[in-house]
């Protein structure tokens, strides 16, 4: 989150600081986060090329560096690189966060943010039942296709048949699922205990180190920018 804040507030050459920070965090804690940069593979060349060709204004460089007004394409290119660097920092920072935080801790954060004690239950149930519903939907889709459905001439009716049968099927299961949940004492436990009484996450040394490093990088960035 510190990376996202720095990406939003820093500009120009100072974007290198959050970029280095996010890249280091990715290398140390989650190398798979770099795979999520694939979503920018198509966008970045478009951004760089269009800004190179269309940006006419001067690129604001820090004092002491030579001006680039003699080449409008170069200032546009620098703007494109700056925008791409910002996007990379944001995607990397969010990816590292999502990949290093456990799903249970994430649902607890959302539970507190939404003031709903039931988010983990809803998410857990949805996660468990999704493959089952997808299988039922796929069987229904194949059955409709075998009967000549999902052609261009009958696409609307095919989609409506698929949706209505799978939705009704899913809604019919809800009664049994809620009885099963109540039989497992879900519901009565929510009245007695609050989220504060359930097991809390215990911060580790790594968490403190990351917090201190983030604070140091943020302070350094703002001081250098000022």
């Amino acid at each position, binding site marked *: 989150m510190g990376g996202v804040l720095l990406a939003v507030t820093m*500009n120009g050459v100072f974007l290198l600081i959050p970029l280095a920070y996010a890249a280091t965090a990715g290398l140390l804690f989650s190398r798979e986060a770099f795979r*999520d940069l*694939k*979503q920018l593979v198509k*966008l970045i060349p478009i*951004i760089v090329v*269009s*800004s190179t*060709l*269309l*940006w006419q204004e001067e690129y604001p460089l820090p004092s002491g560096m030579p001006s680039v007004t003699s080449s409008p394409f170069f200032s546009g290119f620098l*703007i494109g690189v*700056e*925008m791409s660097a*910002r*996007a990379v920092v*944001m*995607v990397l920072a*969010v*990816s590292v966060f*999502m990949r290093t935080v456990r*799903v249970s801790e*994430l*649902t607890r954060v959302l539970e507190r943010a*939404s003031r*709903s004690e*039931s*988010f983990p*239950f*809803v*998410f857990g*149930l*949805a*996660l468990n*039942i*999704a493959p089952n*519903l*997808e299988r039922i*939907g*796929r069987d229904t*889709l194949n059955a409709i296709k075998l009967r000549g459905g*999902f052609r*261009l001439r009958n696409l609307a009716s095919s*989609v*409506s048949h698929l*949706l*209505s049968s*799978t*939705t*009704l099927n*899913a*809604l019919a*299961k*809800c*009664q049994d*699922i*809620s009885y099963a*949940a*109540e039989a497992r004492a879900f*519901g009565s436990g929510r009245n007695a205990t609050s989220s504060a009484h359930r097991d809390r996450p215990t911060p580790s040394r790594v968490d403190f180190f990351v917090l201190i490093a983030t604070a140091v990088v943020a302070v350094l960035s703002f001081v250098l920018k000022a």
Partner: protein
Amino acid sequence: MMNWMVNELNKSSVEITENQTRRLQRFSTRDLVYIAVLSALWGASENLLGGQLHAMNIPLSGAVLAAIGVFLMVICRSFVPKVGSILLMGAVVALLKVLSIGGVVLSPMIAIFMEAVLVELAMTMGGTTLPASSIGGMLADMYSIVHPFIFQPLLFGTSMLVIYQKTISAASKIFGIDPASVILIFLALAVSQGVLGMIGGVAGWKFSARAKRALRR
């Protein structure tokens, strides 16, 4: 002494009303199950129908998927007529998207959650009614065309808006069309997607009434 007793009685009656209100708004187990099942169905339908529509090269398939999301959100609000039911559904689906794709793709996550916010707002202000369902559906589907113009400046910075403006100007010079025409084209696309969203909202409203009758049997 009398004043203190009156104050304590007033306080307790306010507390009782607040507790009752909290209990009314709080989701029951069945409510949560409906939300969870419909969220899972939304995620499953995106995977199933998304692949099928792309394979058939259907234009505006993203808008069709958004309309299906609206259909399910309206059903959710019909079965769980409490404030926050659609928001909870949107949050769950956005998180499920991360796990189904196998990576963190910010754009669909934010789009799904924003669609849920718009439908929630419409149905909270308008009630669980047919007009509110259609307006919410229209707003949610129209958001999908506006989403790149909100998401990309967030990701790439406000310079992105300058790039958009310069692109429209350059394209209008190259092709000899008025820049206002480009905006008209976007508006036309937004309206057509809004119509799809309204259809999704109306279909969801009608389906939920029939489903309630069928499930009661």
